């Protein structure tokens, strides 16, 4: 068993980044995720593994540094919070188009605009429906604990390189700021030049005379070729939908009602189903771990077993649309969630379930 530490979610992401052998982190501070860059700066990972940590002059600069490093086959990441992630969208769309792997972290705060520094889940649409321009998707992982914040960094790199796509860790101020027990892994070395050449033969790591040059671009002015590229991307997303759905089910076996919630809302909902059990109401929780790909098949199957579904999210109702698509009208589906940085309590979730689903 690895060493146990008490860490904030933000610190866990940063420590994991060092230990899995990240080559570079480029970022720009913003609450509630500034501990990521603070921790990386304090830890001086350059002395531990040679990892580069750089505070860029802006979010736009940071994401373009990520583009450059990823194009060279490096393991690279950036993090920000909602308004900063909006600034990065152009670069994220370019990376999806150029098929570059990278890890992005969004510690969501309330919006729109500068909004509030308190937690929110209002960036669901931005994360799973594109965010930037053009037909693209990225894999979105939603950790619900500090341990998952740590573990999902390596998972994200694995998926990013396997599918040559940006991967987003979507979390919020609750998970970012709270401390929990974390089992940390052994330090892994960064990839050597030989490993980069082997693992990313498409990258621009320096051309010898024995091969054609690699080109990293999202631009193709030939429409026929561009359409082929679009089809190629869509096939990739279909493969991801087929193979990479992750979720957790709690107390779903004989549930009469179902809560669907991710991240911090899933933790609150877990307490809510305990409170329901004390009242004699059988409620299960389905927690999507991947938001893209979404566990639509599993939710559709649950719709055959329960009388109604409540989507619990700290926003005005975003994931509920994907649940409605998955359920195909089999049972009533409603949304509950606080906004503006207010975190709903487990009791409020129970009341919403009673009013909107059980009594509705």
């Amino acid at each position, binding site marked *: 068993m690895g060493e*146990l*530490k*008490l860490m904030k979610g933000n610190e866990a992401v940063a420590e994991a980044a060092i230990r899995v052998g990240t080559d570079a982190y480029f970022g720009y501070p913003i609450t*509630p995720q500034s501990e990521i860059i603070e921790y990386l700066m304090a830890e001086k990972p350059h002395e531990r593994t040679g990892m580069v940590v750089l505070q860029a002059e802006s979010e736009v600069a940071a994401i373009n540094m990520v583009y450059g490093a990823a194009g060279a086959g490096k393991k690279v990441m950036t993090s920000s919070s909602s308004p900063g992630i909006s600034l990065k969208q152009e670069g994220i769309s370019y990376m999806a188009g150029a098929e570059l792997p990278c890890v992005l972290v969004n510690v969501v705060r309330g919006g729109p605009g500068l909004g509030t*520094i*308190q937690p929110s889940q209002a960036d669901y649409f931005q994360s799973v429906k594109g965010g930037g321009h053009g037909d693209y998707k990225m894999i979105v992982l939603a950790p619900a604990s500090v341990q998952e914040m740590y573990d999902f960094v390596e998972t994200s790199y694995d998926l990013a390189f396997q599918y040559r796509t940006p991967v987003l860790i979507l979390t919020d*101020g*609750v998970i970012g*700021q*709270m*401390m*929990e*027990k974390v089992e940390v892994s052994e330090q892994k070395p960064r990839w050597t030049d030989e490993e980069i050449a082997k693992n990313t033969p498409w990258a621009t790591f320096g051309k010898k005379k024995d091969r054609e040059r690699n080109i990293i671009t999202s631009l193709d002015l030939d429409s026929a070729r561009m359409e082929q590229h679009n089809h190629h991307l869509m096939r990739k997303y279909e493969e991801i939908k087929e193979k990479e759905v992750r979720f957790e089910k709690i107390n779903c076996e004989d549930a009469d009602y179902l809560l669907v919630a991710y991240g*911090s809302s899933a*933790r*609150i909902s*877990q*307490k*809510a189903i*305990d409170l329901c059990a004390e009242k004699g109401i059988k409620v299960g929780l389905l927690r999507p771990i991947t938001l893209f790909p979404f566990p639509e098949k599993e939710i559709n199957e649950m719709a055959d077993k329960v009388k109604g579904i409540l989507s619990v999210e700290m926003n005005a109702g975003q994931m509920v649309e994907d649940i409605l698509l998955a359920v195909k009208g089999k049972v009533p589906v409603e949304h509950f969630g606080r906004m503006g940085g207010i*975190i709903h*309590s*487990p*009791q409020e979730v129970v009341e919403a379930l009673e009013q909107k689903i059980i009594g509705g």
Partner: protein
Amino acid sequence: MTEEIIIAGFGGQGVLSMGKILAYSGIMQDQEVSWMPSYGPEMRGGTANVTVIISDERVSSPVLTEFDTAVILNQQSMDKFESTIKPGGYLLYDPNGISRHPERKDIKVFKIEGAKIAADLGNTKIFNMVVLGAYLKMRPIVKLENVILGLKKSLPERYHKLIPLNESAIKSGMESIEEVA
């Protein structure tokens, strides 16, 4: 066993670090823990609070609206959190700076002269450790030896020379707690 605790007072009183040491102590005896601060544009002299959960099982919600135990260190926090203690729960407070004493009859109330004891010991910075000692006497959910191990884990090495001072502050707190009702 699950203990859900709110610790609330002024920023600068060591509320967050007291919670952190308590959480680390839970880890030292193989329990599950969570530490959720109120974060935001806060400062020295403003209010600060932290929710700590120590449990034998996986912790569900780190955000709570009612608690088994409240540790209250200023009047604003008394006004805000006295009503959030579950019936049969515990309240520990420092009467220094409190103008309205607790009124609930369905909970157990204890007090600790933390600020005074810390001043008598000659170091007001150990105030939170005196309060932690009182808490541990009232709710012996973590063993003292695990608290000392937790201190070692949460303090940077250069401060380890201060652990005996912290330990004596914890013991003073344990000896000085008084049951009010």
